[in-house]
């Protein structure tokens, strides 16, 4: 081992993303200079991506336990108990940066990565969702990014055979050069079969299976490039091309191994590749790992230990196997024509040892890489200008209510997403009881009456104006979407998409948002079981809106009692549950019809939110409702129009009133804790009683029927015309 072989100058440190102080700390902990491979390993494990050096102290604020939680943060994915012996495993992950330069491959590999996290837990992936943010669609480049991302997501999920059942797409200027691509995956498994990523048992074999290792996604390694020719640096692919076909085989084989109880532990290879996976399993198993990179099958010639250890080639899995089971394991891989190699051994050293044949390239105590990550504690502060935005008054309306309704329905943020989700197979596996296009998607669990509801939510504008309130609303809105199907919110996964946290303003946003989410999670009894952090979403100095995204899972005991958003039958009564306030701040109306992103986001009373959920769930349980839709972007008028368009039947809601509220607020305010429901006329008293029982307001707005959407005295638009506007997608 040649310690200190590289010249550790500022350039080298920048490439491994360590500060001089962090580097000195690593040297101090090791008691000697680092080899190039070791420096690469420290850089990767102490990075924000693997080590969460900025966000970890904040993440501790989340509630992570509860009666349903089987696995909280810390494993490849979280898991909750959904009853009758079943567990649901889920996690969300970002692939923002790769998608910004190669949207198709970037988004596709994002889906691939999150699917691996699910089946690494032993679970069969039963759904994916994708939460997307782009710049305005009138710019060709943004459309190109969006088209590529959507095609990439579809190509991966469709080929793999998992239904893509939900997600969201929003457009704001701030995402122009920095789109957000967050993919969530959900898996199902018998509770007792949950796998953990661990390497236990001295003498057990470390096997690498799946794709050959290439020079994919290796970050700055010039100092170690003695093995590289100058040109290869240039040719090194910055974005990986995923292989969903291979991933499907990998999943089938891995699940078969688990089924036959042939493995001790399993860990997918994601960020920082073999390095991160080996460190994770070794550390969790309380053992050591000895790897020989010369045993790793490669796609290219001339790759050195550094590249092999840090390659991010997709569709690879590390498995820990007892030596006497190796033959059986190989039989399974051979069945699927998968390539597997023994690349090392578990030992009791507590160290990660990396050899290339006889040469030791790295030898590091695992605890240094995991427990000694030097946390950063930046200070946060908002700029005065930011806080002033909240107090800014909105300009006077210029559009009539019917004009505003049409403009909103046709705005990129509110248009129907049918043209997107019909390119995703959302039905494969025969579980999709409520398909995309409503609030949450609902998947039944075969062999039971049970189902789960899943959705993602996040509102960057609210978070920009008030990160704490906006993040709390993201949780509440996700819960509302789940409740609107009749499911009880159970737990969330979250993706924290923020700018550069070294900026005090961004760190303040992050800290506020985490507090807001944590508070909402506590109030609504939905723990955080997994998540992901994506920082440094900046381009040319400006950051994206703070954009936490919440992925929610809810549980329904009787799928027969599920609710959908569309109006059903003429003559049914339409009711608003909850109350409208003068709250147009940060709204879609303010943006689309007034041209401003300003004002305070709507108030969220978490106790009222919770009681409103209880009221709707009680009404669903008593089978009082014919339809149920939550209110969010665009407010009451949009909710009425959507329920009509989804149901394909008009409605007359003339009874809209509110004390001292402007027409604009009545129709378009985004006040929280509201649902739009319809029910048979005879059930109105019972429904209103349920609401009263929970201390929640309700109001009869009108009736379902006809071929127009009538709202208050001003709006009476033909349904067909609204649908034509709504269903026109961006091309």
């Amino acid at each position: 081992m040649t310690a200190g072989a590289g010249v550790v100058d500022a350039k080298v440190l920048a490439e491994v993303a360590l500060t001089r102080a962090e580097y000195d700390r690593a040297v101090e902990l090791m008691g000697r200079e680092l080899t190039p491979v070791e420096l690469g390993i420290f850089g990767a494990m102490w990075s924000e991506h693997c080590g969460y050096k900025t966000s970890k102290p904040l993440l501790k604020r989340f509630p992570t336990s509860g009666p349903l939680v089987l696995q909280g943060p810390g494993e490849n994915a979280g898991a909750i108990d959904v009853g009758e012996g079943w567990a649901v495993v889920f996690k969300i992950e970002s692939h923002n940066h790769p998608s910004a330069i190669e949207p198709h491959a970037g988004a596709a590999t994002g889906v691939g990565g999150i699917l691996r996290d699910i089946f690494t837990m032993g679970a069969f992936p039963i759904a994916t969702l994708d939460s997307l943010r782009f710049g305005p669609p009138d710019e060709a480049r943004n459309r190109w990014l969006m088209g590529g991302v959507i095609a990439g997501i579809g190509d991966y999920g469709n080929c793999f055979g998992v239904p893509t059942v939900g997600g969201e797409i929003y457009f704001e200027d701030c995402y122009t050069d920095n789109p957000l691509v967050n993919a969530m995956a959900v898996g199902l498994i018998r509770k007792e079969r949950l796998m953990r990523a661990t390497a236990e048992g001295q003498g057990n074999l470390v096997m690498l299976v799946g794709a050959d290792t290439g020079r994919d996604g290796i970050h700055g390694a010039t100092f170690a490039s003695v093995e590289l020719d100058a040109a290869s640096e240039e040719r090194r692919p910055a974005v990986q091309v995923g292989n969903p076909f291979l991933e499907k085989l990998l999943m089938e084989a891995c699940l078969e191994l688990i089924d036959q109880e042939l493995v001790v532990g399993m860990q997918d290879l994601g960020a920082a590749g073999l390095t991160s996976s080996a460190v994770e399993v070794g550390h969790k198993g309380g053992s050591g790992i000895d790897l020989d990179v010369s045993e790793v099958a490669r796609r290219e010639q001339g790759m050195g230990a550094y590249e092999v250890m840090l390659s991010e080639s997709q569709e690879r899995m590390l498995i820990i196997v007892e030596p006497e089971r190796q033959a059986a394991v190989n039989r399974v891989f051979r069945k699927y024509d998968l390539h597997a190699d023994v690349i090392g051994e578990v030992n009791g050293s507590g160290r990660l040892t990396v050899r290339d044949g006889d040469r030791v390239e790295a030898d590091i105590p695992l605890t240094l890489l995991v427990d000694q990550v030097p946390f950063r504690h930046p200070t946060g502060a908002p700029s005065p200008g930011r806080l002033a935005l909240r107090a800014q008054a909105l300009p006077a309306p210029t559009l009539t209510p019917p004009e505003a309704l049409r403009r909103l329905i046709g705005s990129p943020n509110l248009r129907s997403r049918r043209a997107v989700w019909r390119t995703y197979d959302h039905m494969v596996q025969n579980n999709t009881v409520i398909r995309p296009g409503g609030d949450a998607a609902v998947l039944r669990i075969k062999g039971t009456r049970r189902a789960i509801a899943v959705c993602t939510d996040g509102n960057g504008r609210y978070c920009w104006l008030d990160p704490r309130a906006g993040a709390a609303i993201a949780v509440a809105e996700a819960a509302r979407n789940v409740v609107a199907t009749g499911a009880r919110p159970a737990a969330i996964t979250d993706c924290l998409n923020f700018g550069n946290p070294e900026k005090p303003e961004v760190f303040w946003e992050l800290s506020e948002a985490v507090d807001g989410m944590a508070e909402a999670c506590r109030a609504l009894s939905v723990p955080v079981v997994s998540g992901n952090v994506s920082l440094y979403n900046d381009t040319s100095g400006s950051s994206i809106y703070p954009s936490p995204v919440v992925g929610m899972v809810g549980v329904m005991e009787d799928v027969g009692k599920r609710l959908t958003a569309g109006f059903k039958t003429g003559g049914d009564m339409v009711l608003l549950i909850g109350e409208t306030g003068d709250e147009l701040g940060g709204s879609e109306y303010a943006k689309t019809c007034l041209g401003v992103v300003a004002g305070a986001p709507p108030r969220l009373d978490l106790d009222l939110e919770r009681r409103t959920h209880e009221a709707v769930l009680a009404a669903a349980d008593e089978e009082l409702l014919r339809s149920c839709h939550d209110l969010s972007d665009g407010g009451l008028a949009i909710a009425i129009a959507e329920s009509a368009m989804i149901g394909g039947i008009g409605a007359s809601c003339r009874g809209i009133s509110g004390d001292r509220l402007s027409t604009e607020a009545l129709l378009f305010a985004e006040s929280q804790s509201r649902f739009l429901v319809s029910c048979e006329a005879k059930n109105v008293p019972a429904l209103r009683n349920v609401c009263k029982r929970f201390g929640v307001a309700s109001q009869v707005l009108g009736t379902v029927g006809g071929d127009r959407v009538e709202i208050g005295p001003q709006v009476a638009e033909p349904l067909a015309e609204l649908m034509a506007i709504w269903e026109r997608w961006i091309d």
Partner: protein
Amino acid sequence: MAAYRAEVRVTLKPLVNDPQGLVIRDALRTLGFHEVEGVRAGKLIVIDLDAPNRVDAQDRVDQMCRKLLANPVIEAFEALVAEVAAV
């Protein structure tokens, strides 16, 4: 103005993973073509266009490649332009 035909070949850069090429390689070997060492899959796009001369035609097609037909992050392109004999 004259008529030109451009043949654009878009291929993945050498170090980029090519799952399609791997499947074709394995399939050929399974079919008994053991002499196959490697396969890379790409696209062939044939464009008929008008241009005042060959140099201009080449220039325009190169622009098309950069703007739409290839993503330089993972792909390389090559465009061969030839005049089409008038019929």
